[in-house]
């Protein structure tokens, strides 16, 4: 039994199934040698002329490029560059219609030739044997060589096969009618082709090189046989003329009897097939260093006056080629890219020649009549007989029409090489190949969609998982926070009860207050009923006050209030021997109004507050009324509560007088700042208390106004320092038998009812204190300690402080309260006397 190699060497050929014998019509274009044409006015070079990825653009509009200079560089998979086909200027880089049946725009470089045709610097490798395979492959890639037979498969990929190559097959069959580009190339450049084959021989080291040429090209066969006379590696095989023996798989089968497996590539069975055009390009790239910038194109057809083969620069407009060959268009003229079997009708002639364009066919209507109307399939099975891939075209057609893509795949649609033999033989003129092309595109689309759907699903699931996780995290956080709050509340209650247990009324009251405050801060909602009550009380008080002090009475509310405040302050001043700096503010009516409101509230409280009778401590209230950040407010409230507690303790143990530090923080925009300021104020109040203690003064009121405007961070730092000081002060106070102090911070804001409520609460607290003072006439004097907080704040406002600590007469309506208050006052007075005595 002879081996396949022996059979091949003996000259044996195998047959392929099917095939047709259309009129070849090649003679007209092979009369003349390959022509050189003048330079066209402009060249449009699509940056992608092959199968694979686009290259990366290297040039800009306006650049001058030399012939052979790369316009793009390989980037990504299966990528080859394109080069300037001649020297000239880049006039445009834009989307231009591509040489494709759709003529969809593709990014292209438009080059205006300068007519010089100056080559860039070339690096010929006359002795390529010295180069490594990788270097050769790289050069093939960088020369922009892609398969020139039609598919445009990048040659460098084929040049590095995974398997060992047994047969290198050179495809010079050119079975498609009309086309003679490869034929002419072989006739004229047989020696160069052999040299090109040498390069591939070095790369593949094949057992045998087979050159397949159809036997209707005797000149080409002769030329090549002559060129490889002394080369026993290379064998020229004259293949019987039959369409489509030039198909890659078909040629392999004819020359070696082997079948390329379904879905596989020739290198799977140790074969590699290159077109003669590609071989010539490789020869140019290796031996001369010239990139692929031109190719042989057959311009033929009955409407062409002088059909011929031309060396056409890539990017040459087809219109230019037609003009140069004497094109005489007819009505309903068609211009076909490729041959009559596999080519496609160009939508326009203003499209460029690209690396895969082997033929421009401009037939007359007699030569190639328009396809007639599609008739019903008569099931003649001629298509099945003609099919070179042994498919069932008729069956495929049914499935394609009914869009049964699964069935199409089952019937091996993807083995179809779209040779058009079935459509050629079809008596019903059914455009079978068109159906297959559409079906293939649909199936590819479907596959792509499936992949995309899969990814969308993955992403959707990933997102859902993420959302779920985030929600869980949030819930966990909430749970923790809730636990903390309940703990806090518990401890608060415990403290309150402790106080109740240890102390009597005062403690109970303090606890109640603390609870109320805690509630308020937790709820965040002001108690409106209380406010309404307060307002009513305030009004009543104002009335009484007016009667008593007619001097300061005016009808206008605001002015009235301001005046009242000033009057009160003055009265106080007159009463008290202490020097107190009272700075009235007339400049800012708003502030004045606020102050007045506070004053009113205090006055009212003095008469109405029952609870205040025993109050020895005033809780430090810091209610920043923050709408934006309830958390911070809660923290501030918590601190305030803690201080109040401490104050209460002190009060219990010492039964001391009260001092109130009031700080007004009219910061309207930032409640946070207000909170900070409040903290600072508290700290100051404590300090003031310390001082007061050392002086053994009765009551001390520190009313600094803090207005932090610019830097909350600084304020925060300052607050921290203040708190630290306050702690120290508190310790000292404990040890020194100190008075109790209360720091109040008010944050009046006009816009926010909540803030108003807070202010009211503070006012109540103050009022309580005032009542106490009023009742205990023997009580100590009041000292106004006004502190300017300029050391804390960079932009402390001028002192708008209004100190209103004043004895307010009793309200007649609150007799009961007064009675209790009086009792307490008496007790305090006693103590005050004692203090004085000790002093």
């Amino acid at each position, binding site marked *: 039994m002879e081996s396949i190699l022996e059979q091949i060497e003996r000259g044996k050929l195998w047959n392929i199934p099917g095939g047709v014998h259309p009129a070849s019509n090649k003679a007209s274009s092979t009369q003349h040698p390959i022509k050189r044409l003048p330079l066209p006015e402009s060249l449009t070079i699509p940056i992608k002329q092959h199968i694979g990825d686009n290259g990366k653009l290297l040039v800009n509009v306006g650049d001058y490029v030399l012939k052979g200079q790369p316009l793009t560089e390989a980037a990504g998979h299966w990528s080859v560059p394109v080069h300037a086909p001649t020297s000239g200027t880049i006039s445009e880089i834009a989307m231009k219609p*591509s040489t*494709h*049946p*759709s003529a*969809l725009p*593709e990014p292209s470089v438009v080059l205006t030739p300068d007519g010089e045709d100056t080559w860039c610097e070339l690096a010929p490798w006359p002795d390529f044997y010295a180069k490594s395979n990788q270097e050769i492959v790289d050069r093939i890639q960088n020369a922009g060589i892609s398969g020139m037979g039609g598919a445009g498969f990048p040659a460098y990929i084929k040049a590095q096969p995974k398997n060992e190559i047994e047969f290198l097959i050179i495809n010079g069959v050119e079975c498609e009618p009309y086309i003679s580009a490869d034929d002419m190339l072989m006739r004229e450049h047989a020696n160069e082709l052999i040299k090109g084959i040498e390069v591939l021989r070095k790369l593949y080291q094949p057992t045998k090189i087979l050159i397949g040429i159809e036997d209707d090209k005797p000149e080409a066969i002769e030329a090549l046989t002559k060129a490889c006379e002394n080369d026993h590696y290379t064998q020229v095989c004259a293949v019987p003329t039959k369409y489509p023996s030039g198909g890659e798989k078909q040629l392999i089968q004819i020359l070696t009897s082997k079948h390329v497996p379904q879905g596989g590539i020739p290198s799977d069975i140790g074969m590699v097939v290159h077109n003669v055009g590609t071989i010539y390009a490789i020869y140019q790239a290796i031996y001369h260093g010239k990139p692929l910038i031109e190719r042989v194109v057959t311009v033929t057809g009955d409407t062409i006056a002088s059909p011929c083969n031309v060396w056409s620069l890539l990017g040459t407009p087809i*219109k230019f080629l*037609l003009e140069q060959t004497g094109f005489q*268009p007819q009505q*309903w*003229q*068609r*211009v076909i890219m490729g041959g009559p079997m596999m080519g*496609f*009708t*160009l*939508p*326009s*002639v*203003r499209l460029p020649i690209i690396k895969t364009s082997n033929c421009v066919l401009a037939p007359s209507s007699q030569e190639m009549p*328009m396809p007639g109307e599609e008739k019903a399939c008569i099931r003649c099975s001629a298509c099945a007989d003609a099919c070179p891939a042994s498919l069932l075209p008729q069956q495929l057609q049914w499935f394609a029409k009914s*869009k049964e893509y699964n069935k199409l795949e089952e019937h091996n649609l993807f083995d179809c090489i779209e040779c058009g033999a079935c459509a050629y033989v079809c008596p019903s003129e059914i*455009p079978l190949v*068109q*159906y297959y*092309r*559409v079906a293939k*595109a*649909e199936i590819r*689309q479907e596959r*792509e*969609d499936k992949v*995309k*759907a*899969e*990814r*969308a*699903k993955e*992403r*959707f699931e*990933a*997102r*859902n998982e993420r959302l779920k996780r985030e929600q869980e995290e949030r819930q966990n956080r909430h749970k923790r926070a809730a636990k903390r709050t309940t703990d806090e509340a518990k401890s608060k209650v415990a403290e309150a009860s402790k106080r109740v247990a240890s102390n009597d009324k005062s403690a109970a009251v303090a606890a109640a207050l603390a609870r109320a405050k805690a509630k308020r801060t937790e709820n965040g909602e002001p108690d409106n009923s209380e406010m309404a009550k307060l307002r009513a009380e305030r009004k009543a008080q104002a009335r009484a006050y007016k009667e008593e002090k007619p001097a300061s009475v005016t009808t206008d509310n605001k002015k009235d209030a301001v005046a009242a405040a000033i009057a009160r302050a003055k009265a106080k001043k007159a009463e008290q021997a202490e020097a107190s700096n009272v700075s009235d503010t007339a400049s800012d009516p708003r502030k004045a109004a606020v102050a007045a409101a506070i004053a009113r509230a205090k006055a009212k409280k003095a008469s109405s507050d029952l609870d205040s009778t025993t109050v020895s401590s005033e809780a430090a209230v810091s209610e920043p009324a923050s709408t934006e950040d309830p958390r911070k407010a809660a923290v501030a409230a918590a601190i305030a509560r803690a201080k109040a507690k401490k104050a209460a303790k002190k009060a219990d143990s010492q039964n001391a007088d009260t001092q109130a530090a009031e700080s007004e923080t009219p910061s309207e925009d930032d409640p946070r700042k207000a909170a900070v300021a409040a903290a600072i104020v508290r700290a100051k109040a404590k300090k003031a208390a310390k001082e007061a203690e050392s002086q053994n003064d009765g009551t001390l009121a520190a009313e600094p106004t803090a207005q932090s405007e610019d830097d909350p961070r600084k304020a925060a730092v300052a607050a921290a320092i203040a708190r630290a000081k306050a702690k120290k002060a508190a310790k000292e106070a404990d040890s020194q038998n100190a008075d109790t102090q209360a720091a109040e911070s008010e944050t009046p804001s006009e816009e926010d009812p909540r803030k108003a409520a807070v202010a009211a609460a503070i006012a109540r607290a103050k009022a309580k204190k005032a009542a106490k003072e009023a009742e205990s006439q023997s009580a100590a004097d009041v000292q106004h300690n006004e502190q300017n907080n300029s050391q804390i704040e960079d932009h402390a406002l001028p002192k708008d402080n209004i100190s209103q600590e004043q004895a307010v007469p009793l309200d007649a309506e609150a007799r009961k309260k007064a009675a209790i208050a009086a009792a307490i006052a008496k007790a305090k007075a006693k103590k005050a006397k004692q203090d004085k005595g000790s002093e």
Partner: protein
Amino acid sequence: MTLFYALLALGGLALLFGAVLGFAAIRYKIEGNPIVDQIDEILPQTQCGQCGYPGCRPYAEAIANGDDVNKCPPGGETTVQKLADLMGVEAKPLAGGEEKEPIKTVAYIREDECIGCTKCIQACPVDAIVGATRQMHTVLIDECTGCDLCVEPCPVDCIDMVPVKTTSKNWKWDLETIPVTNIE
């Protein structure tokens, strides 16, 4: 005695087969409903919710439980047909009277109008929109399923659904055209 042997043999066989079946039931237990996976495979996974379910899988489950197969507008007639074939029911036209072959779209954000509110990011079921607060957002076209869900939440209406561009990769032959060359 013979009777006893017969009973013993039959009883033994019954036990043996029972054991085998019991083992098989545990060993080869099917988790979940396999039909749901098959349906989910057919659905286009746009996660658009146009069927009234929050995503494709919930709809797949609903179909498995007997819901109509014609509630998926992005899938078009083909999906309805496939679902009908799978479920053994008759294919109905789409419930909303949508087109048989839906035009594929992707979201496009007019970037100079975007205010960076992140609302569309939150709405996107496949995380195909990137951006940050007060930063311009943009759509990852390759990941966009064209579900329309981002259009509604946009406060400035800067999102358009644009048809997927035809490129030489997704271009299809039109069988109806008459091949003529423009020779000008």
